[in-house]
Every structure is written in C-alpha cells, then in structure tokens.
C-alpha cells in the first residue's frame, strides 16, 4: 500500500514537472495519413493556444516540406542523439504563430543504426525531448513507418501514440501487430489511440472494417478522416488544411479529432486497455467478418 501511495505521489510530481505532452503520429504501415494528421493537428493545437513543436522524424521530410522549410539540419547526426543545443539551434518558426518545427534531415534514415551504437538506445529520444517539454506545451512527432529501434524510442517518448488506421484488412493487421508488440514488450498500452484515416464511406469494406474494429478494440476515436482530394492539395498549398481550406469537410474532421485528443490529454492520456483478444484471433475474426460483410 505504501509503495503504491509513494508511486502515485511520485507519478503526480513527475507529471507536474514533465510539462508538455508528447503526441506521436505513428504506424507500422506507410501511406496511412500520418504526416497530414501530424501537420494538421500541430496547427490546430497552436491555434488553440498551445505552444507547439512539430518534430519531423521521417527522412522523407514531408512535414518539413509542408511548412516550406528546407530539410537540412546543422550537425544533423547530433540532433536526435545528443539534443540540447544541437536540437534548439535547428528549430524553426513556421508561418503560424505558436507553431515551431524541428525539420527532418536525410540522415534520419540511418537513425536506427546510430541509436544502436548509443548508450541507452531505447530511451534516447525521450531524454532529448525532456528539456523541450518545459519550453513547449505540446510536442508532435511525425514518425516514419518502422518497427526498429526508432519505433521503440517513439514508444518510450510518447505520452499518446496516435495511430491512423486505414479501414482495410492489412492496415488493421498492422495495427494489431503494434498492439501485440506493446503487450509483448510490456509497454503501456493505454498510450495507444487509433483513429480511422482515408475513409471512403461508400466502400462497404471500409464500413465493415470500421464496425468490426470498433467492436474488437476499445479506445478507437470517434473522429474519422475522410479520403479527400483537399488533403492531397495540402502539398500544393504547402500549408495545413485548417489554414488553407478551413471550411473543407476534412478540416472539420481534423478539428473533431483534435477535440477528442484534447479531451484525452485533459484526462491525463488515459485510454482503454487492449481487449483480451490475441493478435491472431482478432485479425482472423476481422478478416472473416469483413469478407462476410463485403459479400453481403
């Protein structure tokens, strides 16, 4: 009992000291809308009054491109390994007040290898973000699709792991794999929050997959991001959707998503724990159900 009380008090104190929340947009699968979500959510956070830092960890540097910043870091190798001055020197203000960006660098493609050679390789990112938590109120990580040491760094650093899931069998399977990995490695599963991305309502398969996944996994957010040309046009405008097309349906959905995330952060990041289904059973049930619904 005493250790539980001390643990509780310690956690409370740490939470107070810790400062900003770290929100990671991550998925094992690529092309699911991580970058668009990271950019739009970071923008919405900044306009809602939170001093926000978006860290582009993906060597593809799409977030960096959206904000018209060149994907080039000074002393790039030190940035994500040492942090401190190496990181703060490279942060750039964006076109939007209250939103800063840590640009990507092509050298990030070797990050997993470099981390492997460093001390405490799984918690490196968490430690280098620590000083930034005091300066910012929200840190958004735009993560690459990976399950290397980089992913484990993200799992350790993030307070909320936000997974965009395209309602298709393969994406659902990948989502299941991430959860299974969390369970196996004893990561805190309450960090995981999923939302449906690139949803095409007219597709029966999407509808069925969403229904089945909601039945099988607790904690899937209500907001769904549609598959929309407006989102793709962000690349042309090189601006977040709520800034360049504030009245579009997709921008509205991102606002809904942000509201849900805000509520979760207010509750202290608490999310539903995984269901008791194992990975293989949930995926097979999903495949069975979705194919049946699609046939119907």
């Amino acid at each position, binding site marked *: 009992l005493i250790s539980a009380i001390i643990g509780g008090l310690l956690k409370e104190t740490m939470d107070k000291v810790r400062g900003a929340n770290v929100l990671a947009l991550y998925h094992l699968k690529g092309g699911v809308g991580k970058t668009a979500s990271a950019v739009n959510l970071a923008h919405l956070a900044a306009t809602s*009054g939170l001093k926000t830092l978006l860290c582009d960890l993906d060597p593809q540097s799409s977030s960096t491109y959206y904000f018209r910043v060149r994907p080039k870091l000074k002393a790039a190798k030190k940035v994500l390994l040492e942090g401190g001055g190496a990181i*703060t020197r490279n942060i750039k203000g964006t076109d939007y007040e209250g939103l800063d960006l840590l640009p990507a660098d092509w050298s990030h493609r070797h990050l997993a290898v470099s981390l492997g050679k460093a001390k405490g390789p799984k918690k490196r990112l968490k430690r*280098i973000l620590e000083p930034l938590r005091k*300066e910012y109120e929200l840190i958004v990580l735009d993560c690459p699709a990976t399950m290397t040491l980089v992913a484990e760094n993200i799992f350790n650093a993030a307070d909320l792991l936000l997974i965009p899931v395209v309602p298709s069998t393969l994406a659902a399977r990948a989502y299941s794999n991430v959860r299974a990995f969390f369970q196996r490695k004893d990561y805190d599963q309450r960090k995981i929050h999923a939302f449906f991305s690139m949803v095409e309502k007219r597709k029966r398969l999407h509808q069925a997959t969403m229904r089945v996944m909601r039945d099988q996994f607790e904690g899937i957010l209500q907001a769904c991001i549609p598959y929309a040309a407006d989102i793709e046009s962000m690349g042309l405008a090189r601006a977040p959707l709520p800034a360049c097309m504030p009245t579009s349906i997709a921008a509205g959905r991102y606002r809904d998503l942000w509201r849900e995330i805000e509520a979760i952060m207010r509750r202290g990041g608490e999310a539903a724990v995984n269901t008791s289904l194992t990975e293989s059973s949930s995926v097979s049930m999903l495949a069975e159900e979705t194919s049946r619904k699609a046939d119907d």
Partner: protein
Amino acid sequence: MTKRFGDKSRKHRPLKDVVVDVPDQFRATDWMRDLRRRYEIQEEPAVHVAAVFLDTFDGRLFDKGLACSSSTGIVRLYSVDNPSKEAQVAIDPPPRFAAEFPEGKLKERLLPVSRNRALLKVLSLSIARQSWRILNADQKTVARMVLEEAEVRDETQSAQLRPCLILKPVRGYERLAGEMAEWFEESGLNRLDRPVYWQALDALHRTPKQHLPSSGTRLMGSMPGADAVRSLLESLYETMRINEAGVLGDTDTEFLHDYRVAVRKARSLVAQTKGVFAPGPTARFRKSLSWLGKATNTLRDLDVYLLQRSKYQGLLCPPLNAHIEPFFVFLRGEREKTFQAFVRVMNSREYTDVVLGWGALVKDPARLGLGRKAMVPVEQLARSRIAKSCRTVLERGYELTDGTTPRALHALRIECKRVRYLMELFAALVPEAKDLTRRMKKLQDSLGSIQDLTVQEARLRQYLTQPEICQEGSKTAMATQELISCVCEERELEQKRVLKLFGQFNDSLGETDPPYSLLLPWLRVR
C-alpha cells in the same frame, strides 16, 4: 566539465518583439517603399481585433506584475513588463474564476494569485491591425510586422493610443529580424519600452484596481474619542457604500464580504464605545445595522459554501464525489433566490432610509451628540476597550472543554471578532495589536471553520429532505450522507484544535517579548 546531452545551459532564448513608436510626421509610404526594395513582403488583410484586460477587483494580478488579456478566443497571461507570452489558453468567453480554466500553465500561474476572486474587465481595446509577412525565397515567413492603432475604453472614459509598429521575429531567422530592427532605428523609429497595457492604463489615468477600500482615517492618540470614533464610522460608511454597486452587480463575492465587514465593524464599534456619543441616535442605528447584517447572512453562507465546492468534493472519494454535483446545483439555485431577495432589500425604501439616515448621522457630530466619554483621548479609549475585549475572550476561552457546545464556541468566535475589529480599527494607535492580531488569527480561523461546518451540515440536512433526493437508493442521497459524516468529522477535529490553539494564544500573551505592557494589567486574569 563535459556537457551532457539535453544540457539546460543551452536553452534557447527567443528574440523579443521589437515595438516602435510611429511619430505623427512619419512618412509611412516612402518607408514602406524602401522596405519592399529590401525584402519580399506579403500584406495580410487588415483586421479589427477586440481585446479585454482582466484583473480582480483589487488588482491582484497587477500587484504581482501580471497582465491577463482575452482576445480572439485566446486568454493570455504574461508579465506586465515583458509581454512575450507566458501562458495562454483558447477559451471564449474567459471564465470568471481561475479555477474554471482548463488545466495547464495558465491556470497554474493564475490560480495562486487570483484565488477565488472573479476576473473582471479592467479595460477594453479596439485595435485596427495591419500585418505583413516578410518572406524568403521559399515564400516562407521569416519575420512578421504588425501596425496597431488602438482605442482604449473602460466604463466611463475612452482614449486613443499612439500607433505602434511591432516587429515579430520568427525562430530560426533571428539574424534577419536583427537587421530589420537596426534599419527601423536608422529610419527614426524609436523603441517603445512601455507595453500596451501600461499605455492603456496611462491613457485612462488609472490602475487596474476597480475598487479601492477606504484608506481609513488617520488617528492621533490625543484626539478626543468622539471625533476619532465618528471619523472611523464615516470611513466604514464610505466602504459600505462603495461596495454596494459590486454587490448589486454580483461580479465578485468579495464585494458582499467587504460590505458585511464594514457593517459589522460599524455596529461593533458603536457597541464598544458606549458613552462616547449620546445614547439615543446610535442605539437606533445599531438595530438597523443588525438588520442589514442578518439580511446578508444566508447569502454569505451560500457564497462560502460555493467557494469551497472543490474542497467538499475532495472530501468524498470517487465515484461518490460525482454524485454530489446536484447538491451544488441546488445551492446555486438557493443562492440565486437569496441574492434576488437581497437585491429587493437594497432597492427598498426602508434600506434607502436606513443607509441615508446612517450616513447623515455619522457625518454630523452635532446629531451624534456627546456622551460622558466623548473627550477621553482615543488611545486610552482604544487600549482600554481592546484589553477588556481580550479579557472576555480569555475568560470564555478558559471555560473551553472537549464537550463545549457549538453555541458556546460561536459566542467565543464573536468575542474574538470584536477584539479583531477593534485591533484593526485602532492599529495605528496600538502598534502591538498587530502582533496580537496575528496570534489570534489561527484561533479565529479555527472557530470560523467550526461555524462554517455547522452551518453547512444544517444545509446538507435540509437538502436531504428535498423530495427528489430522499428516494430510496438515490446516489446523491448517499453522497450527501457521506458528506455530512465528513463535515461532522472535520468539525470534531477542529473543535479539538480550538483547545490547543487557545492554549497557544494564551501562552503567547504571557511572553515578555513583544511586550504587551500596556495591555497586560488588563489581560492578567489568571
């Protein structure tokens, strides 16, 4: 020493906004043409922005060097002298109390300063804002420039502020901002060191304090008692009247509290200085002041209850604490009814007669008349009264036991209040009273808590009799029962503390340093 990664010493220090004054004779068109030659500039649509500055009625934020503004749905809290953002939150309209803000830096910073005082509008700004973005070759914003022309107004006046130009550096592009700032200076634009909040206050010739409590009366020890007491009564009358608008506006519960304290102090002072004035007129108004006090008792009790809402919710464990919310809804309803009843009192003919009559009396020495102690020097009078009241407190205190009834404790509390009021009113004449007040405070707070808990227990029991609550299995009823148990338990603990605190107070009076030499002959009753 080697530097560890994430070393704090490398913390980024952002460049501050550069604010410059735009003189009347400034040739803006030529200047802009020059600027466009140097940089690529994109003009943003002009906007009109309204901003409101907030503070408590007694200017608590300002006293702590803070400014709180609300504009375009965002509330900002920052240092008055350094407007670079300290904390902000998106919320519209801004809540009246700090406790109602969402969790975050702003609330953490605001709550200890404003505590349970309402945030009221100090002044509003209507700003015409023209912005420009300075772009690099990638069409990326590398600096911002804003021209602001503002009109400031409060309840009674308005004024135009001088236009100012603000250069806002963008992180990572500080060198360019530095170059621009130098060029501003070369163009004859001088830096404005006074932030807009200061400028606005200067323009209105005021401070954020909306209501200044009466500064009190300067008493000289040799003044005849009648003159000194009359001027104190007049000052209390002014305080009472000054708070009336705040009470009617219902903006902050502190207005009612100050109003009540002024009424009670006046009543107590009249009672404690018998023989200073002719007995007839003051006796009649003592009854009237008593009526005013009673008319506000329930309202104040409900205010205290609602202000301590989070404390009471905290006494219950989850999930029971969620079920007590209907009780607070009930209290809010009761409070509204009670408030409206008091508004009717304040608007009544009887109230006007009492207040105006009392005002006329305390302002006119001839109407007050002179009693047998009228010419006794006020210092002598004050010391004698304080000592006698202290003696009564001690006598009642010595009778305290574990089984002392709430009624007896309440009587002791009233005696303590009398001493406290006297000590506050005559603080300038009896300097050692300040220390005595401090020593008595803990005892008085404890007695106050017992009284509050007694009243609140009665209120909870009354709530339990409501038809919608007393149904079988009602979770709100369970939560209320639980809260009653908690309140009773807390009161018992507080009653035990009172004995200890009284002992401490009594012991402290026996100390030689600081000396109570002038009071001790009266105080030594044992």
